[in-house]
């Protein structure tokens, strides 16, 4: 069986084959394992491949479901999971030495929901340590590479999930997005990545980076599959107080295609400024022209506080992180160093050797921002800016249904290109941070290629308006009908 035959498959297509008896979950799983064996030594998308457990589960599913042809939504579908989502009995490291060897005794809510829907956890994917980064170079276990060009980064922090889906090591994956960590790597790897409205998906079991920003989102090859995953993982959860009390999303809510043509698309001028790579603007503009031809109205809007959003984010997110990461102290789980030399020494050595430089930088930033005497000038100010950013979006959505922007101002950069300057690295998220700060949903999707590299387009909607987000994304996907990625990955492509 050649996996390439399935490159344009959606979950529904696998189910059709399952139903006809032409494919089984274990055979499909084996095919993905072979693909992983083949390409992952070069990509390093996975931190853990769940070989035995996954196969056992696949066989059990087959047995349980013999003779039935109506499947739960993710039945038999392998799902790659970012390594900051707790999986019962499966290591969860957050890409950090400090959690090396940590095996959660419980499943995150999203994992429970995936499994209830019949999914099979194929493995845990690489990420920037504690989701802090935009290139997956901050992983303590080595970087992931971009399947389109092994010299380039896959984006981050969900770079492992993005690369795995783009390289077809897994059909779908979960990532987490704090300031762009699902959308930016999705764009860098030419796939679909959804950041849901804050509170639409339970965070229970997602290792916290910045609690008021973190959201889990699907990373898929098609909009269709993103919808399917979102249907499964969304909805209220008694275990997460910040989770909105709404039922799971249903694709029935998505408005029909013909309604799209009457929609007004806002183009925020701050996102098409001179800081953006002109080749990217060119590709996106071409898509927008086509949408116009289809009858959609394009208007220019403004999100005036865009430039402050990034600065405020680097106050608010590290502040929360400094507190969220205090629990890694060597007492209960994970790494412990210097335990025989007294408490202070244990804290000092464990945290000094357990955390990487970017995590330390953000803990320091956050600790400083929250310190008495600085709180008002930093954290409180950051929160005020956040309110202004949110208001920007409210005002924009009073005049249009959706916003379309580039996902990142830059193309996937080379490994090591931006590691010297944290600020340069932070800029890669400048277009994904504002909507995260506002808590509104947005989706990143491929809208073409330039010099063999994918170009990502971002669609942003008002809070809990995933339905319109999906409507336009699906419309664009069908309009463009781009081939789904199946990059050839081999050492000869490394230049």
């Amino acid at each position: 069986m050649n996996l390439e035959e399935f490159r344009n498959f959606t979950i529904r297509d696998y189910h059709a084959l399952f139903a006809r008896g032409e494919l089984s979950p274990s055979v499909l799983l084996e095919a993905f394992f072979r693909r992983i064996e083949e390409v992952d030594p070069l990509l390093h998308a996975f931190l853990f491949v769940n070989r035995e457990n996954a196969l056992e589960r696949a066989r059990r599913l087959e047995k349980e479901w013999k003779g039935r042809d109506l499947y739960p939504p993710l039945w038999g579908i392998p799902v790659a999971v970012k390594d900051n989502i707790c999986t019962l009995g499966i290591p969860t490291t957050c890409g950090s030495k400090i959690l090396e060897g940590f095996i959660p005794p419980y499943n995150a809510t999203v994992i429970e929901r995936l499994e209830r829907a019949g999914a099979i956890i194929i493995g845990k994917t690489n990420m920037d340590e504690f989701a802090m980064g935009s290139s997956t170079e901050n992983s303590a276990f080595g970087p992931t590479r971009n399947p389109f060009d092994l010299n380039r980064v896959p984006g981050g922090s969900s770079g492992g999930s993005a690369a795995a889906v783009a390289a077809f090591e897994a059909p779908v994956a979960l990532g987490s997005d704090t300031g762009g960590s699902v959308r930016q790597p999705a764009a860098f790897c030419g796939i679909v990545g959804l950041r849901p409205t804050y509170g639409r998906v339970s965070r229970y079991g997602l290792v916290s980076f910045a609690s008021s920003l973190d959201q889990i989102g699907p990373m898929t090859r098609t909009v269709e599959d993103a919808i399917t995953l979102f249907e499964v993982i969304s909805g209220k959860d008694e275990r997460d107080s910040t989770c909105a009390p709404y039922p799971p999303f249903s694709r029935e809510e998505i408005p029909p295609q013909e309604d799209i043509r009457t929609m007004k698309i806002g183009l925020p001028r701050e996102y098409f400024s001179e800081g953006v790579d002109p080749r990217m603007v060119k590709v996106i503009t071409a898509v927008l022209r086509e949408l116009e031809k289809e009858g959609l109205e394009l208007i220019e809007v403004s999100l005036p506080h865009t430039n402050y959003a990034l600065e405020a984010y680097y106050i608010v997110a590290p502040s929360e992180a400094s507190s969220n990461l205090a629990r890694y102290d060597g007492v209960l789980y994970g790494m412990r160093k210097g335990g025989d030399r007294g408490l202070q020494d244990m804290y000092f050595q464990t945290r000094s050797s357990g955390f990487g430089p970017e995590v330390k930088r953000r803990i320091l930033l956050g600790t400083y921002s929250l310190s008495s005497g600085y709180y008002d000038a930093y954290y409180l100010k950051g929160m005020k800016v956040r309110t202004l950013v949110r208001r920007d979006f409210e005002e924009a959505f009073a005049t249009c249904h959706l916003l379309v922007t580039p996902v990142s101002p830059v193309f996937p950069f080379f490994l090591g290109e931006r590691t010297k300057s944290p600020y340069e690295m932070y800029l890669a998220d400048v277009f994904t941070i504002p909507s995260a700060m506002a808590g509104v949903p947005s989706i990143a999707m491929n809208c073409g290629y330039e010099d063999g590299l994918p170009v990502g387009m971002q669609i942003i909607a008002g809070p809990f308006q995933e339905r319109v987000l999906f409507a336009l994304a699906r419309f664009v996907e069908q309009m463009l009908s781009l081939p789904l990625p199946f990059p050839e990955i081999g050492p000869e492509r490394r230049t």
Partner: protein
Amino acid sequence: MENIYVTIGLEVHCQLLTRAKMFCRCSTDYIGKTPNTLVCPVCMGLPGALPVLNRKALELAIKTALALQCEILPEVVFHRKNYFYPDLPKGYQISQYDFPIGVRGVLEFTLQGVKKRVRIRRVHVEEDAGKLVHEGPDLRGAVSGVDFNRAGIPLVEIVTEPDLHSPEEAKECLVMLRSIVRYLGVSDGNMEEGSLRCDANVSVSLSPEMPGTKVEIKNMNSFRSVFRALSYEVERQTELLRAGKTPVQETRHWDEVRQVTVPSRGKEEAEDYRYFPDPDLLPFCIPPEMLQEIQATIPELPLQKKERFMREYELPEPEAYILAQDRDLAEFFEACVREFPSPRAVCNFILTEVLKNLNSLNIGIRESKVTPSMLAELLKMVERREIGISLAKGIFEEMFRTGMGARDVMLKKGISFLTSERDLEKVVREVIEKNPQSVADYLRGKEKALHFLIGQVMRATKGQASPEVVKNLLLRELSGGE
């Protein structure tokens, strides 16, 4: 010798009586449980676990604040208090900061009959930490472990203004506070078991205009140690001042063994807790009807009860105060009075005999085997002069021990107590016949002879007759009665 001016403020923590912990569903019934058996990812602070507020904890904290006449803030906001300690699994404690549950309350109590009034600065709710357990030959060779069974149990923190002016006042204030939380049913207020904890700020000054130096005292594990630690501290600071020195602003621990306060080791540098609103918990708006519902559950409080006892039962203030301190005892008293409407007698018996027996076992009235009806029955027998008061005390002890009624105790003990005066009359006549000399003496005006005759009757009845009844019978017989 010049005057000294003592200023004391209390910071009291009470474990709230919820069935589940504050942010997870683990049981709070941790006393005597194997370490780390009442835990889950949430109260262990495992990566990815999130807190979900137990509304009951909030309700109990609001109830406490309402009973202390606080203004209730409309929005409940939880803050993270960040610091490192092994008993703190998340590296921060979920607490409250600038939006506590209640502010500006009042607590009243009396000290030797004088009414005192302490302002309450704030009442807030927070989670308890785990407990460090050391094992090994000495501290150096010890292995330290952490028991998280206690971690996440809801606490209400009550902070008073520095309105207390002596260790006696501080202790009495704490006693009243415990009495109130017990009345409310929000906490069992047990200092020895740690469900009520008290820290104090003490400052002493030689002039009322000059504020003293604030010294914080911790590690006081009983009411007695609160009193002793504060007395020690007042004396220590006074001596320093008289020697022309200034006390250092610091935290000191009460050393129960040596009965002194000593400076706390370490953790001395002013800690910056970096409070900020917990992003895992959304602010909670208290609906007005929730406040009304909680207000309706607040019972008559100790001071109100005391006033009523003085009014309704004409009890003296000190007795009424002691009874009212303990809600169970007060209710026992009232139930008993309903069956034996002689409040003074009931009160006296409770405050002497009942308390003595309860204290000897260190239990509360609720745990005792004696019911109000049983006590009423006993007191009725005394009133009817069927038994004397000293016999009644002995019978009560036995009732208390066995749970038997007064008559059953007497039967079992073979106390064939004289049920009718007719039986007693027979004995009295016999004694008169056998002691003509004493009768003659008495009739000649010798009072002592009467006592001798009473003694003879008592001996003949093996002490089971009421001396009062015997005396009356003798007088009747000797005056040629009938």
